[in-house]
């Protein structure tokens, strides 16, 4: 009896100390966010590079590694960083995702901020056991004695026009389904930089999926210097009153096009567009408040519809907004097939499919 109480106090004290540190970090971060006023025009991948640069500069105990990272990475996300921070902090790993993940987890558990790059999200599966059974459960199985916070797995995800089965996947659902992990997907350059910095510094392992289709084509003003966008908070991209449309990543551009088409062809329709940003834990409050206002919800993602994150969002919104709903919730997603090759254009949730869903819900009549 006395022994158990002793253990409890020890852990409690450790938790308090850790929480204390976290709170002061949060306070500092908020200040830095408002101080970063000046902006610079950048591509999304350029913003990722900028975030990595800031992370490595501000945290002397941080490392960036992965396949081909040393020469700048196959998407140029790590360009210039090895030259700037040295080979002991920015380096190549063997061609072994399981090894990259295991190494990253061990490094993070020992206090080194680890930014591990998986070259394509499609290649993350050899690392799945390490991520799910080690990274996600380290804090839990040790009762908080150990953790692998400050650990990010970055991976380019999603359709790219010619990626086929193994360069187009959106694996977010597998990771959202794993307690202990956070999953973040940016949709624009400024968002990418702020969210990546927040993810790197989060006290929990984060899967950061980067929309490779818009690596170069997405250009925007990005705050110079250090700033963060908080995890777990969605962004209302465009307010509206008729229907709530939820998406993330590259799909946001498709949704914007669908909204433009819908508001032109369906008079009186005003769509509220939400960028979820963090998929796990997802911002239930923002989505629920929106659906209570509009009474209609559409969720759209490239990943296959069955068991996708759209299903989770639909179920939760149904649960919380049942009496507010004026139409069934629609999901406009990829089909339940592997991502195809030549037939990609008919597979993906195109703006026309989203438009059809908008039309369906606004015209819904029992």
């Amino acid at each position, binding site marked *: 009896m006395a022994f158990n109480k002793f253990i409890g106090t020890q852990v409690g004290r450790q938790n308090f100390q850790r929480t204390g540190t976290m709170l002061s970090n949060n306070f500092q971060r908020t200040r830095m966010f408002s101080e970063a006023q000046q902006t610079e025009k950048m591509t999304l991948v350029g913003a990722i590079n900028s975030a990595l640069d800031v992370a490595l500069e501000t945290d002397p105990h941080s490392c960036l590694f992965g396949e081909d990272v*040393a*020469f*700048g990475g*196959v998407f140029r996300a790590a360009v210039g960083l090895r030259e700037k921070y040295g080979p002991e902090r920015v380096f190549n790993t063997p061609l072994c995702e399981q090894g990259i993940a295991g190494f990253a987890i061990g490094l993070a558990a020992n206090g080194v901020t680890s930014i591990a790059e998986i070259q394509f999200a499609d290649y993350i599966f050899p690392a799945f056991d390490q991520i799910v059974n080690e990274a996600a459960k380290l804090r839990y199985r040790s009762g908080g004695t150990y953790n692998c916070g400050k650990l990010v797995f970055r991976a380019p995800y999603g359709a790219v026009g010619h990626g086929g089965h193994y360069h187009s996947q959106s694996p977010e659902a597998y990771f959202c389904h794993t307690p202990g992990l956070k999953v973040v997907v940016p949709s624009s350059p400024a968002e990418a930089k702020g969210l990546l910095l927040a993810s790197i510094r989060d006290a929990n392992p984060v899967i950061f999926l980067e929309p490779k289709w818009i690596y170069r084509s997405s250009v925007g003003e990005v705050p110079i210097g250090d700033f963060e966008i908080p995890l777990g908070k969605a962004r209302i991209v465009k307010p509206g009153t008729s229907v709530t449309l939820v998406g993330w990543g590259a799909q946001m551009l498709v949704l914007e096009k669908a909204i433009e088409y819908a508001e032109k062809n369906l008079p009186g329709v005003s769509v509220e567009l939400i960028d979820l940003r963090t998929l796990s834990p997802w911002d239930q409050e923002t989505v629920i408040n929106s659906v209570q206002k509009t009474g209609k919800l559409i969720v759209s993602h490239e990943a296959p*519809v*069955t068991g996708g994150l759209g299903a989770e969002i639909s179920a939760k919104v149904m649960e919380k907004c049942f009496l507010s709903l004026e139409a069934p919730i629609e999901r406009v997603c990829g*089909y*339940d*097939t*592997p991502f*195809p090759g*030549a*037939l990609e*254009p*008919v*597979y993906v949730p*195109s703006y*026309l*499919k989203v438009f*059809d869903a908008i039309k369906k819900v606004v015209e819904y009549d029992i």
Partner: protein
Amino acid sequence: MDSIRVDGNDCFAVHEACLKAREIAIKEQRPILIEAISYRVGHHSTSDDSTKYRSRQEIDGWSHWSPVTRLRAFLEKQGLWSEKQETELRAAIRKEVLEGVKIGERKLKPGVKEVFSDVYDQMTPPLLEQERELYEHLQRHGAHYHFCLLY
């Protein structure tokens, strides 16, 4: 495990090494490792510019050792091949490849049903439903997808 290291760009040496290794493996019932030393002269893929991580001199140095070039030089020295035969063969093969390309380009893209076939041996209920949804969608908006249709 015993091993044989061989110049991977010398087709006769590789053949010799494989024969020897096979003989040992079968006769003595044990594994043999063949280490064939070679080099990737081309870029990793069409998205790669390998001069970003290796020098031109390195690439050019190794191109010299191409197994195909070396075999050709050997055959020419033996009087089994000539410049004239080389030119004629290249022209004939080029013609054959270009004709194949023409035939291929005339073929239509796979039909939309190929999206849903062979996921399983039999299409499952969700797939049947999704296929129907896609067909209905294409009936409404087919013109927008013209570039990738159809049977």
